[in-house]
């Protein structure tokens, strides 16, 4: 567990300052300040439309902010292109499963491994049986519990398996910062429990930003929680503080308990 004391000496991995993004009149991100420290699991919660996914897209470079700064390890990455951020160690999973449907599970992860191994302007050698790609990919499939499904075609996999594959793709990027956008979305009880176990395993080895609606999961996993409402950080702190915060209860948690 992270205490106040240990946090003060740990490194800040990601720093977001005054981030703004508007879609027409809708201010999806309205001046967000946020710090993510090395090794912690920060959970982002908030009602639908609070700007969680927009924030994710700004962090990964899929969207450009209107204003504000993003620093990764004290390096300004605000204008860095999305693919470079992927190579710099920002990985994400998608709320709506986004894999390569015509590739096998192994083929999917292999692509992510391949991205880590320099340019792919290699036209001759057959990639399918290249151990430099296969072996790391198989290891990661094992790690997420898909070891026995390596040869399954993604388009024929079950929803829960695809969610695991999502995580595998992100892990194969050897991320410094792993952003998980609702990893349990649409999952049954059993699959959700398995996913929470998996995240628990990753916790500590990887810095994680977890966006999640399942409050049990959030309070079980998070070192700190940031509450987003209408594109602003309403509160940020350890789970106990967030649970007690009257503002948060009114804006968000209260609705669920009622």
């Amino acid at each position: 567990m992270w205490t106040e004391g240990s946090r003060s000496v740990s490194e800040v991995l990601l720093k977001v300052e005054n981030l703004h993004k508007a879609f027409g009149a809708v201010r999806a991100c309205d001046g967000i300040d946020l710090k993510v420290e090395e090794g912690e699991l920060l959970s982002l919660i908030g009602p639908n439309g609070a700007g969680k996914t927009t924030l994710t897209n700004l962090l990964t470079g899929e969207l450009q902010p209107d204003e504000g700064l993003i620093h990764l390890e004290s390096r300004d990455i605000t204008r860095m292109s999305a693919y470079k951020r992927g190579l710099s160690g920002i990985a994400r999973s998608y709320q709506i499963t986004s894999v390569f449907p015509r590739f096998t599970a192994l083929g999917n992860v292999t692509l992510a491994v391949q991205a880590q191994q320099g340019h792919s302007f290699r036209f001759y050698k057959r990639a399918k049986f290249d151990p430099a790609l296969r072996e790391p990919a198989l290891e990661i499939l094992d790690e997420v519990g898909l070891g026995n499904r390596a040869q399954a075609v993604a388009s024929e996999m079950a929803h829960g398996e695809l969610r695991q594959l999502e995580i595998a793709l992100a892990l194969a990027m050897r991320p410094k910062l792993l952003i998980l956008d609702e990893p349990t979305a649409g999952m049954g009880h059993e699959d959700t429990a398995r996913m929470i176990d998996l995240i628990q395993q990753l916790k500590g080895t990887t810095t994680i930003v977890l966006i999640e609606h399942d409050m049990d999961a959030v309070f079980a996993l998070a070192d700190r929680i940031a509450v987003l409402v209408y594109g602003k950080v309403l509160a940020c702190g350890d789970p106990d503080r967030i649970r007690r915060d009257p503002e948060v209860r009114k804006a968000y948690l209260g609705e669920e308990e009622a």
Partner: protein
Amino acid sequence: MAGLIRQRTVVWIAVAVAAVLPFAVSTLGMDYLVGLFTRVLIFALAGVSLNFILGYGGLVSFGHAAFFGTGAYVVGILSYHASNGEPLPLLAWLPPGTELAWIAWPLSAAVAAMLALVIGAICLRTSGLYFIMITLAFAQMIYYFAISVPTYGGEDGLSMWSRSTMWPLDLSGDTQFYYVVLVIVLITLRIVQTVVGSRFGRVLRGIRDNEKRMIALGFPTYRYKLTAFVISAALAGLAGALMANQTEFVSPSFLDWHRSGDLLVIVILGGIGTLFGPVAGAMTYILLEEFLSMWTEHWMIVLGPILILVVLYAKGGVWGLVDRGESIRE
């Protein structure tokens, strides 16, 4: 595994038939068919080139005739200057044209590739429907450019004195030319198969499946798409060079959007995203066109419904009859 054996069997039978075809038709006294099958092979090559970006890269280029026609014009123009001795425009310091295949054909591919580098650099900034329209627009620009240049025949086109010379072969005979084209098609298929299975090919297929995710994984997708676009155009240019030799004539109709449409039909009819699909597609399309048009000049009335049926009911196209999904697994 059984699927792969079935596919291999069909391919080797097809290669064997193609190898003895000129003898077979001449025994039957139907030598004119050699020219027809040469056309099939040339369109197969053009289809393979389009399929490389369309089937493996998901890039719907509706302007592929631009590269096909450019390749044809390079051969036509070089041959024109070689026969009348006029220096090449802008390149007067060079020998005035050439009829040598070893020079003219690679040049066709190179010029088409350079054109694709420029067109692709712009078109690939867009995607989806916009990409379709902008590739069409560029192809039409080149079509109208060809029409408006009177030196090379404008709308009437340009007749060549003879086919390219390809020491030590003699291409003036249809049978020799047929074999040269056949060898080029087989080599190209082998190259495409290798590239598709390489790391580059995987990136290309990944982009087709999910470009957004590829970017998130750290792939600068634009430069991979552009490279594929240029490779594809080079092959289309080579196909154009062969077609110019087949007909000994080039005209703006080589650049026409109908031609781009033909190539799309060949790829879709044959089986999109499969190695041999475009070959099967070219065979089906050209032969249907040939035999239906003997029977009626309104052959499109018959071909149209066939196409619709294939698209609706045979998702893998003609080649899908042989390849029942094995090549879908990547």
